């Protein structure tokens, strides 16, 4: 079967990986995972740290070999060199040789992709533009910020216009602005290369939610769930948290329960969209300043990981630690 007839871009069948730890001890990082990523979709690989996300991506690239099971990338096993001709990869903590400039890095990786010289220089300009590094093209990597390195690594992954993009925690270690930029960048890549499959890992729910069509849930090396994100969001409860400050000392509310008081202000838990609107109206007439409105994610997380693991960690952003 040629790669074009193969309906899935990445497929894993009963894949396990055990790392040796010293002579006797072993660590089972991935256990019996099977899934297939259909062509042209944006799929998120979601799980807390240490759940085996990076291991799955590295196995798909042939960096490490699964202890058991089979992996196919566009119909080729990752041990074959040509399987990597379909793939662009952004590692978890990309680092480059410091003495090269952004442009030289892209030229180097481009020739490794066997791109023609004339085509390559056009592509390099295009990509530097796309990731917003045109101004820094001649600068040495040594002076780059983490976000710039991340975007350069992203450009590196796109060089050969690959059919599959594997991003390992593309947003990790960036400040909120950097995360936002990168999220937009992934969105733009999806628009410009609609036929490309984007498969990326994350431990941040909100990132996955905003970008992906489907999510794969991993926990402790096992596949917990593989579903479409709209299926998940469909059943979402309408629960909100509203925080406001500057309220008059004497006031009473009818639309929710106050759950905490902090330097930021007072926070209420509110059920239902109508109640939320009423609350906001009320707060306005009382002359209060609304500091934040959050949609409560607990129900979604409960769906994803089951009741037991939700307590593990939760922050307003929905970060699973």
């Amino acid at each position, binding site marked *: 079967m040629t790669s074009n007839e193969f309906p899935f871009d990445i497929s894993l069948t009963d894949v396990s990986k055990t*790392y040796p730890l010293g002579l006797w001890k072993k660590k089972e990082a991935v256990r019996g995972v099977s899934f297939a990523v259909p062509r042209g979709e944006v799929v998120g690989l979601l799980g807390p740290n240490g759940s085996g996300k990076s291991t799955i991506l*590295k196995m798909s*690239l042939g*960096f*490490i*070999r699964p202890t058991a099971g089979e992996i196919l990338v566009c119909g080729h096993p990752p041990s074959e*060199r*040509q399987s*990597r*001709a379909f*793939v*662009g*990869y952004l*590692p978890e*903590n*990309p*680092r*480059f*040789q410091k*003495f*090269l400039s952004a442009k030289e890095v892209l030229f*180097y*990786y481009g*020739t*490794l*992709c*066997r791109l023609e010289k004339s085509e390559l220089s056009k592509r390099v300009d295009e990509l530097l533009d796309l990731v917003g590094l045109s101004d820094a093209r001649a600068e040495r990597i040594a002076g780059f910020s983490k976000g710039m390195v991340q975007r350069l*690594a992203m450009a*590196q*992954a796109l060089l*050969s216009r690959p059919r599959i993009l594997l991003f390992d925690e593309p947003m990790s270690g960036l400040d909120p602005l950097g995360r936002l930029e990168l999220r937009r960048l992934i969105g733009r890549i999806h628009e410009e290369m609609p036929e490309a499959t984007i498969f990326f890992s994350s431990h941040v729910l909100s990132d996955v939610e905003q970008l992906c069509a489907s999510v794969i849930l991993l926990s402790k090396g096992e596949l917990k769930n593989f579903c479409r994100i709209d299926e998940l969001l469909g059943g979402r409860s309408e629960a909100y948290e509203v925080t406001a400050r500057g309220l008059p000392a004497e006031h009473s509310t009818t639309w929710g329960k106050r759950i905490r008081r902090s330097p930021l202000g007072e926070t209420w838990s509110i059920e239902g969209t109508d109640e939320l609107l009423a609350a906001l109206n009320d707060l306005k007439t009382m002359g209060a300043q609304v500091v934040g409105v959050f949609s409560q994610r607990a129900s979604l997380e409960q769906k994803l990981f089951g009741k037991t693991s939700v307590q593990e960690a939760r922050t307003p952003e929905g970060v699973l630690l």
Partner: protein
Amino acid sequence: MIALRVAWITMRELIFERVFYLLLTFAVLALGFSLLLGQLTYAEQAKITLDFLLAAVEVSMVLFSIFMGIGLFKRELLLGSVAMVLSKPISRSSFLIGKYIGQVAIQFAVMFCMLLVTLAIQSSFHGDSSVLSVIQAVGLIFLEVLVLTAMAYFFAVNAGTITAAIVTLCLFAVGHMRESLVYHYNISISRSWIWPVIMSLIPDLEIFNMKTIASYGYTLDWIQLFWAVVYSFCCAAFFLFIACVCFANKDIAT
């Protein structure tokens, strides 16, 4: 050729590492040494200086082979840039061989300059040393470098940085003592079969050593040189080959 691209980047990395300070040090030392010896008679002076310069070329290049070879390779693994390189449709062998070629090319350039310095200093004496024998001696050291660098890469693939360096250094030492070991084996009573096996795995590096005879102005004939080249290429190819095989089967979990 993909390997040549990797080689080119490796060369730039080495230049960025300021390897040419090595040359500067060498030139300064060489000049200082020959001035220091000024009070000796000409013939003695020429011989001692040549001895010293050739030994300096060898020691610096052996250390370069071992520490730079292992360092460059390990650094790329630890840095993680190897992940992006190997995510391209290239084989791990091209990567390894590319690094090797890049390093050896820089070493060639450095040794060529060292040779020029040595020849310049030599020409200031009127001893009975010959230009050809100095060229031959440095050429043989380069052949030794080819083997040692390949050995360093092999151990770098299979062991930690420090371990690899120590093992390669040991093999370098044993490689130069091989002849006396063989001699002792031949005259000893208890001849275990293990020794010939071990000895056949250790390259005979004494083949590449003509420092002493070069300082007397003797030269090797072309047949001897030819076999030295063949021997060096075979050993280097062997170690590189097994390094590639081992590297291809390793988990890269950076």
